[in-house]
């Protein structure tokens, strides 16, 4: 096991003297209550746990993670992207067409799930209005980490032909961080698959 890094001591900041405070020498000294031994040991044990955890993580980070663990999980993550099954506008039809017999996105392990809890990819397929914006953010927050967002089509990218309208969010990247933009109005199913493949190359180089 590597060296144990001590837990960072919490610096004790003396309270700033209040306005008009005067030191008075004749105040009686108050005895500090003695801390029981067991309590001290408990504190030490409590400190040990995060320290050990950190050391263990550091060990993994130094040796195993870079070569084995991270590539493995990246491989798994990029080969089974579950997009959220929801349709916003026109692109949703092409999104559905990508799972049809001809294009068959399931070849790459892409299976749409209806519940955001089970998804790791949100494909924003259509125009996002201000009315639906907070629901989109909720859905995004309900997805567990690690998660990705694809802005599919021009409406999600920047509002598209409707960006001047009073009710449209000019691009979903104003609401959630976007990883890949797919241009097209709407993009062909092949273009959508191509976007997901591009996201997979991003995940392959992921360093986290």
């Amino acid at each position: 096991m590597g060296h144990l890094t001590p837990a960072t001591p919490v610096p004790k900041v003396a309270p700033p003297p209040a306005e008009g405070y005067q030191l008075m020498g004749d105040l009686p000294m108050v005895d500090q209550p003695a801390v029981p031994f067991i309590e001290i040991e408990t504190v030490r044990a409590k400190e040990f746990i995060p320290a050990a955890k950190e050391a263990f993580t550091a060990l993994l980070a130094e040796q195993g993670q870079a070569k084995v663990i991270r590539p493995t999980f990246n491989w798994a993550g990029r080969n089974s992207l579950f997009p959220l099954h929801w349709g916003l506008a026109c692109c949703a039809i092409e999104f559905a067409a990508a799972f049809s017999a001809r294009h068959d996105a399931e070849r790459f392990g892409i299976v749409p799930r209806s519940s955001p809890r089970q998804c790791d990819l949100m494909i924003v397929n259509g125009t996002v209005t201000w009315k639906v914006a907070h629901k989109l953010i909720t859905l995004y927050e309900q997805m567990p980490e690690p998660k990705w967002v694809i802005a599919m089509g021009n409406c999600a990218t920047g509002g598209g032909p409707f960006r001047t309208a009073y009710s449209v969010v000019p691009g979903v990247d104003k609401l959630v961080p976007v990883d890949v933009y797919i241009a097209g109005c709407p993009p062909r199913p092949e273009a959508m698959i191509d976007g997901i493949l591009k996201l997979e190359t991003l995940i392959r180089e992921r360093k986290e």
Partner: protein
Amino acid sequence: MGGATLFSVSDTLASVLLNGLGSIFPQPIHGWLTNPDLILGLAVLIFGAILLAASMINTIVLIWWERKLLGRFMDRRGAMHVGYAGLLQNFADGLKLFRKNTFRPRESDSLGFYAGPVAYMVTSLIIFGILPISSGWNSGALPLSLLLALAIFSFAPLFIFVSAWSSNNKYSLMGGMRSAAQMIAYEVPLLLAVVAVVVVSGSFDLATIVQEQQNYWFWGPLFLALVVFVAGMLAEMERIPFDLPEAEAELVEGWNTEYGGMLFAFFMLADYLRALVGSILVVLLFLGGWTMPGWVPSAATSFPLAGIVWFMVKTYAVFGLFVWIRASLPRVRTDQLLRIGWNRMIPLSLASVFLAAALVLVRCLPVFGCLPSPGV
């Protein structure tokens, strides 16, 4: 039961290991290590590990099999880019879900939320310790193994309901309620259909039932019971057309709406474990288990691997039937499901019991035997 069983293999393995280890040490420790109880315990552990690995791998391959089959039914290819023909796809899915963030909705009940999936998974796994896969699979001389298997099998909806209730979601709750209703409706005909098998074979022991089918498989004479059993099994496995608890169209994902990450993987895996158990039960009860027409029984016993392979081929074929049904039928509604269960399935299963009794009485079983037996 002669020949080498899997349990005897692991027993031998354990004794060799412990004897070898014990020979290093001086007497008192040597005595402790070569204690027969310890050997037996280790043997059980090894046996369990083998079972666990076998069932897990089989389940994952089963998912692959379903995806590929469904793909062809739907005029597409299914998973094909991860590994050879997509064989590694499900391993990637599992690893990814393992890596995902684990979380719990704030308003949910902590104990039920975590314990539900685990218990669901465990009860599905336990059944594998009972099922004889081949004549040489385990010693499994439990006289009531069939009843035990079915009893454990019917635990699951309870845990589904617990996890559905504790995840504090309206959709989950409705899924859980449906699941409970479905369990009650389909447990009875399922058991009655099994009674027909028991009447004919005269035993509750799965291994004995299979050996009874050495000459003729039961699906010919007990066709009615087979139909009832398959329908009930579909309902128990919660697959289309009886997949109401997770009906995707109206209840978002049913009772696992709020589950993600590893807990969701538990659910997924346990679902397919149950599908595997269901297929295995169909094979055991109606399709002759590991017996093969034209095979001398002693040959199968002495070479269990061939029996296992033959058994798995049958199991996967039965599962293919389930996939076929899934590909071509819509799902039924709750009240229709219950009506089918109470009004049609139970009379049918009762009829099958009477039929089986009549068959036994008139001793005309070999007439209906679908496969001629060389032995008799």
